[in-house]
């Protein structure tokens, strides 16, 4: 997921911030309680957070197939585009509201469809999706995207 990729950034850039040891657990026992990669509030120790992040990043880099990485990059792109539209809407105003809605929901919908494709083709979910082969998943994805963009174009005025 792109969110994952984006989440690499804040903790790394936040290394300069002195960590707040919230939990009483000592830094030595952090192997048993690794903090989240997501929020700095849960990090018991800067060192361990960084370690875990690095290792999971490495893990991700090594284990993820190239195709899935492509999907992830696309999803990250969609998040950025959607975020930009939202920021524009908040800052400048939502005057052609149809257009904003169409554009924004196009990104959201495409993101969701891509996430579905990624989930369906994930080998770990094989047993959940017995009836969905990879080709079928991709065909579904194309069908969904076609419908989505038809509606968006129709809605954009």
């Amino acid at each position, binding site marked *: *997921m792109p969110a994952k990729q984006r989440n690499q950034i804040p903790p790394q850039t936040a290394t300069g911030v002195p960590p707040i040891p919230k939990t009483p657990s000592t830094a030595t026992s952090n192997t048993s309680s690794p903090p989240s990669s*997501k929020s700095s509030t849960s990090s018991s120790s800067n060192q361990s957070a960084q370690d875990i992040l690095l290792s999971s990043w490495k893990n991700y880099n090594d284990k993820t197939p190239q195709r899935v990485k492509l999907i992830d990059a696309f999803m990250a792109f969609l998040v950025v585009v959607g975020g930009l539209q939202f920021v524009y809407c908040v800052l400048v105003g939502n005057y052609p509201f149809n257009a904003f809605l169409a554009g924004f*929901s196009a990104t959201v919908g495409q993101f969701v469809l891509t996430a579905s494709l990624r*989930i369906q083709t994930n080998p770990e979910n094989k047993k959940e999706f017995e009836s969905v082969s990879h080709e079928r998943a991709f065909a579904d994805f194309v069908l*969904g995207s076609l419908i989505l963009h038809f509606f968006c174009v129709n809605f954009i005025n």
Partner: protein
Amino acid sequence: MVAAGLEPFLKGDSGRNTRGLLRIIILCTIAAAAIASRLFSVIRFESIIHEFDPWFNFRATKYLVQNGFYSFWDWFDDRTWHPLGRVTGGTLYPGLMVTSGIIYHVLRLLSMPVDIRNICVLLAPGFSGLTAVASYLITSEMSTSPSAGLLAAAFMGITPGYISRSVAGSYDNEAIAIFLLVFTFFLWIKAVKNGSAMWGALTALFYGYMVSAWGGYVFITNLLPLHTFVLICMGRYSPRLYVSYSTWFALGTLASMQIPFVGFLPIRSSEHMSALGVFGLIQLVAFVEFIRQQVPNKQFQTLLRSLILVIFAVSMGFLVLLTVSGVIAPWSGRFYSLWDTGYAKIHIPIIASVSEHQPTAWPAFFFDLNLMIWLFPAGIYMCFQKLKDEHVFVVIYAVLASYFAGVMVRLMLTLTPVVCIAAALALSNILDTYLVADNPTPKEPQQNGQASSDGVKNAADFIKDSLRSTRTPVIGIYSYISKASVVGILTVYLLLFVMHCTWVTSNAYSSPSVVLASKLPDGSQHIIDDYREAYYWLRQNTPDRAKIMSWWDYGYQIGGMADRPTLVDNNTWNNTHIATVGKAMSSREEVSYPILRQHDVDYVLVVFGGLLGYSGDDINKFLWMVRISEGIWPEEINERNYFTARGEYRVDDEATPTMRNSLMYKMSYYNYNALFPAGQAQDRVRGSKLPAEGPQLSTLEEAFTSENWIIRIYKVKDLDNVGRDHASAVAFDKGNKKKKTTKRRGARVLRVE
């Protein structure tokens, strides 16, 4: 047991083919029966559009067929709601009209020119056949037994609860909406089961179709998120759920926003917020699942889970804040009346005045659903026994729909499908157990108990003493007598059910209510056709732009049959305008006349059932007119004044002066005395004797009265040529000398002082 008993026969390939063919034939027969039983109204009466709303739909369809889709979309109707007009293209659900328009053009393409009226009349029965098939499909997803689906289809085909809104000629939104409802649910179940984006996308497409067809789409909008939410809360989140829900929501919301009448509602109104909230929630859950796969650790999970809860709570708070601050529209009045049944009566009389918005009386459940109403809980119990994802759906659907059906009569329609499904599940289970011809051999239970099902046995051991049924697992029925008796009784019940459905359909639900039927003493049928008589009189004898004022119930019919502009109609979008009409009807002539003049009214139409004993007339609806106009002009209209001192609503000698001077009373009983010998005039609806002297009308003149006096039309007089007020003009015409009247008045004044 069935599978075990018939295994040799059914395992074979040919057996399966035969069964498939048989199933298709049965389904076709059921669909045919569903269509046929809805044709009573055409056979008894004729191919005619029924009731009130269908007349508007019919008129809109004609407009669509004549003028094409684009001008239909931009249709501004200046012949309704005079002088305001109505942006019809943007304020209707176009699904129904577009559907019949497409059918019309397809048939034309096949060089079968069918009158658009016949398409409209037969659309509802046609779609009811499809509904039967759809309920077969959805029930087949619930149960492995093939008989369940077929039973559900049969139930759905003939149950009066659904027939009530889908007989031939009842060309209303519900005609196609129930099919869409059931089919959308089927696609949703399919999507959740397979986790396929295609089924999700199809769900969204049919959801979009549903949105274009009926305002009841909000039921789907809330039911699917609720199902998802409950599944997540039960700890049953799965990637399949994510795929199906996200696909449905992303596409479905966009699809629903394509309808101009819905527009931005999906992101603005509270009714749609649950779907949005669950969408956000499932994104979060999916994200957490993703993280969990990357970093597997228990404590971490709990942390994230609490994080989710916090985010969810915060966003809910944010939502409430937005609602309070007015960014998101609060719940609309109709929805409030769903939670608080007394709400509409106090605040929105116009909603409470519609009879189909009243709370349901309990016999209605038995009347509409008959034997299914007691099979329904059994079916729900069976869903609890299995409790897979799809069964959870049925349970939620059952709970919600039962509540709503209890609150509003017309929402019985949404309850009917789930009752059919549940009843079919229960009944098929019984039949499958009892219909096996050969005995289960005594060995079989031992095998089952000891060897074959270790898992079951362990479970049975585990709760051995707690439940009686787990001590000895159910094997089958041995004696032929019990089999025969149970199956026999069930068959009798089913036959009774069929008879009941046929009887209800033919007697209760097949009346067009435009044409009335009565039995003559010799048993033959007598058709009372006053409505059409009067509407055609209007069509033939009045100028094309003559404005007709009537109570809003008849607005659509006047527009459809008489083709004359009306002041108010059944699309009750402007309460004030309706209240104005109500005020004109319930005030004295001197007050009403200026209102009539201001609104360019040429003719006033009232419905009067006193001669025939037709109880749905305007005098019986009169109190609603009073109430609605009292809501706008509380200082001029007061409901209390229309009741006698003892709180009775009377039309005879004891009626209050306010009542007897109201325009509605005068128009109803004007000249009615002339029909009877002096002092014998009687109102057969209210069962009361009327005052010896009938009311006098000065500002209106009688233009037309139909054969049985059901419809009376009055022409609004023009201003007097000499500038007198109408009362004195009438008095002059009658030959009363002006002098005499003033003298009398003078005397009276003296006496009072």
